[in-house]
């Protein structure tokens, strides 16, 4: 998923000259959490490697609120828990070990599926990023896994040597490298935590359906708020530019035109924004074309054509055909660009494919935007 903050280096100034073990321990001890038990914990248990927190297996309204907030981009990059080992129920030396990311939503998804079970949860330091994204970057990787196993002294806590990882972490974790590295056996469980109970009850057997990612309407809809939040500042910026520009025209600068043409321009930008950031993701499988930029352009074009058709044989809601033509170029260009950026949030686009689509799409979007602005400005003086 497209996330944007910068790397400001290691957590808690863990110097790179330290041995990995010490560094991992120090990171683990760094108390990002307050001293009192977090709200998702219901006690603690003593293990050979010290006292560890026991976690609840039912999510509370507070957890759901946190999930809702990150979907809107609120505190999204700080939605994390301290890496380390946690207990579910009353785990023993034989209990299974589940591995997850330290993004709180990943952790919540996992623990909420372990109701009535006794298990260990090993949380890796993925810098608060979800399983798939962090595995793609390698932070949820073989090295961090081996480091974390050592840091929590897992071999003193369980007698077996098997770890159950989410399937999507396979992009970062190499089972044979971990096996060779420290002898632990990595087993990839299902893609979705909701399949975990059936997977475990079937004796750790995944069905082909459990192995495949999906991208359902519901999956896409939850991503739309964040898309809208991330692009909103550009909408505001473009709106201000168009409001100021719309004052120009025959007979000098006019405030009335800002109220008329300007507000109409803001409405058109809003339509382009919603077409690219909301309607394209929602309607994805039903829009013609395979490239996301093409899908976005279609939605934007459809919206403007409807507005023109509304007033045929004239230019619709617009002053003249030049204004209509300007938006006919601008709206699809904008919505195409926004939809193209949704590739990062989708579950099935390849980098090679994105590169190919961008080779055509980006020059087209730039050309259409430039031409659209020129046509629109000329239309102001007609």
């Amino acid at each position, binding site marked *: 998923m*497209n996330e944007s903050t910068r790397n400001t280096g290691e957590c808690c100034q863990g110097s790179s000259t330290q041995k990995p073990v010490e560094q991992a321990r120090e990171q683990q001890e760094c108390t990002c959490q307050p001293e009192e038990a977090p709200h998702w914990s219901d006690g603690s248990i003593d293990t050979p490697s010290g006292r560890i927190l026991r976690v609840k297996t039912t999510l509370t309204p507070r957890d759901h609120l946190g999930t809702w907030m990150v979907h809107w981009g609120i505190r999204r990059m700080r939605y994390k828990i301290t890496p380390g080992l946690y207990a579910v129920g009353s785990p023993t030396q034989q209990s299974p070990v589940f591995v997850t990311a330290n993004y709180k939503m990943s952790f919540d998804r996992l623990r909420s599926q372990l109701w009535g079970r006794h298990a260990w949860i090993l949380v890796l330091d993925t810098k608060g990023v979800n399983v798939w994204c962090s595995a793609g970057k390698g932070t949820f990787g073989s090295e961090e896994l081996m480091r974390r196993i050592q840091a929590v002294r897992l071999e003193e806590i369980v007698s077996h040597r098997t770890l159950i990882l989410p399937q999507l972490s*396979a992009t970062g974790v190499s089972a044979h490298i971990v096996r060779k590295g420290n002898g632990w056996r990595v087993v990839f469980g299902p893609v979705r935590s909701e399949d975990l109970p059936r997977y475990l009850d079937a004796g750790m057997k995944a069905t082909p359906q459990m192995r495949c990612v999906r991208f359902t309407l519901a999956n896409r809809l939850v991503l739309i708020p964040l898309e809208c939040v991330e692009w909103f500042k550009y909408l505001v910026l473009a709106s201000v530019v168009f409001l100021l520009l719309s004052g120009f025209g025959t007979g000098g600068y006019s405030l009335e035109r800002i109220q008329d043409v300007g507000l109409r321009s803001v409405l058109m930008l809003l339509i382009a924004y919603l077409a690219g950031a909301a309607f394209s993701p929602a309607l994805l499988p039903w829009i013609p074309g395979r490239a996301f930029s093409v899908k976005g352009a279609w939605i934007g074009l459809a919206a403007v054509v409807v507005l023109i058709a509304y007033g045929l044989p004239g230019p619709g809601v617009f002053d003249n055909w030049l204004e209509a033509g300007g938006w006919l170029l601008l709206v699809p260009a904008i919505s195409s660009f926004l939809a193209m950026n949704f590739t990062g949030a989708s579950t099935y686009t390849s980098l090679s494919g*994105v590169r190919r689509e961008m080779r055509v799409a980006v020059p087209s979007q730039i050309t259409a935007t430039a031409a659209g602005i020129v046509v629109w400005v000329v239309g102001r003086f007609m």
Partner: protein
Amino acid sequence: MFGLRYLEDVVTLELDASKCTGCGNCIEVCPHAVFEIFEKKARIVDRDACMECGACAMNCAPGALSVDSGVGCASAVITGAVRGTEPTCGCSEDADCC
């Protein structure tokens, strides 16, 4: 209905059947059912479904699989182009831990 299929004939996934031991790890980790086992070896059955996540190559001990893996994300490509690096989604490598 156009479905959730991406561009055709772009994927860099390669399978060297001579190195394949038929362990089936690729089938287990692939999130898009790209592989199947045929006559005790893996084979690619749906190449265009591959999203180049790299999980198969990462978990292929004999090294029979190769793929130019990365995130299929336009923002990452743009960020990479601006910074002059490989595509990077710059996803929160931690702004303010602790």
